């Protein structure tokens, strides 16, 4: 099981480099669509996260949540992070 703070840091860095914004601007409650994430980006993020952490993560999780906090809670509910 992955650690929540490690995953949060990875997601923040990934979004920051993908969207060319300062990591400090990506808050737990920032809405993905407000910071410029579209559904292609969401599925790319799922794939990149799978490769980085060498685990299987359903891309559905990345499409049904609107914020980093919601995504992390869903990952936790699905036993992917502890």
């Amino acid at each position, binding site marked *: 099981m992955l650690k929540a703070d490690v995953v949060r840091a990875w997601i923040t860095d990934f979004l920051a480099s993908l969207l060319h914004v300062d990591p400090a601007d990506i808050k737990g409650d920032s809405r993905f669509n407000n910071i410029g994430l579209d559904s292609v980006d969401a599925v790319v993020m*799922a*794939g990149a996260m799978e490769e980085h952490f060498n685990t299987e993560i359903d891309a559905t999780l990345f*499409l049904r949540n609107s914020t980093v906090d919601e995504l992390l809670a869903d990952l936790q509910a699905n036993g992917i992070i502890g």
Partner: protein
Amino acid sequence: MIDLASFNSLAPGLRDNPHPVYSALREQAPIFWTDTEQAWVLLRHREVSEAFTNSSLLTLDLGQFVGDVSRALGDNPVELLRLLKMALFFRNPPSHGPLRSLVARLLALRSQASCAAAVQRIAHRLIAPLARDGGIDLMRDYADPLPPLFMGWLYGLSDDEALWLAATLAGVPVILNRGCSIRDYRSANLRLEEAHVFLRDRLAERRRTPADDGLSLLLSRNDEADQPMDEYHLAALASFVFMAGFETTAALIGNGLWLLLRHPEHCDSMAADPALISGAVNEALRLEAPIQQVRRRAMTDQTIADCQVKAGQHLILMIAAANRDPRAYPDPDRYLPGRTGPSVQSFGGGLHHCLGGWIARMEAEMATREVLEGPRPHVVLEKPPWRPLHNQRRMNSLPVQI
């Protein structure tokens, strides 16, 4: 009241039984915007059916989406992208028309009566183990193999070839679901590489020795076209039509049998009068549509049910909800074969109205009829084992016993 802006059709609770939520939302508004899906959602029969025939709403190109995701992750799934380029329901004018007429020619190769006779022979053979062994899995051993065997007959493939092709392509249609991963794209591409080599070989055989069959017809019609496709794309088109012919039709046959066999009173009346079976198939299409939702993109600014839809915005046409709109079908959750009402939305409408809809209905009718002619099976399961997908309504297995 449900918060409309945070509605997301991929929510885990909406997978097996989305209808209580759809029903509540449908009464709240005819159309609403959801932030989480970045799309307008349409749940009523009227708005969904009008959206299907609205030519300023374009279909979304899944090929572009898969291409963008794959490129960003360093992949190039050539055969999958070829398949999606041939997928009629993701094409808009002008490329849609010539492709659609080629597929229409293929599906019209044999008369409706000879198609029905072929399906009956296949169904008769597949159902035999039920009487002999006292049980059968109506999904795995009946609904799943029937449509590929029929498509194989149409193409001019042997039964073994058709079943091999279906087994090789199984799992590819999963990519039609939102929420697929790059993993799904990669695995689909590997399966398609194998299937497309096989189809190119069969097409090359027909090129050398034309036969009276579907693959030969594809070759000759394509040769006559203004802009003929190469044989890589022709193989991808054959693969797309084969898949479109088996995936949702197998789902429909299974869903129809599940609903009917749990209502013995209807079984008796339909066994006595097979003309009633078409009503049962229509009711299965309505209650458990194999494709639950589709997306469109607005080409122009427009007003839909008093809402301002802007050019470029997406719309979700919720087929599963439109089919249970009480404005269109009184007592909508009730299984009532033969009920009257407007046309079900399961085959879409307008430019993209399902070309093979009549074949799917005919296959499901024949399959149901063959089951009802033998000893009456009983469903073993309490609940249908739906595949864990949001957009496809299809069972994994339907074991029955006499």
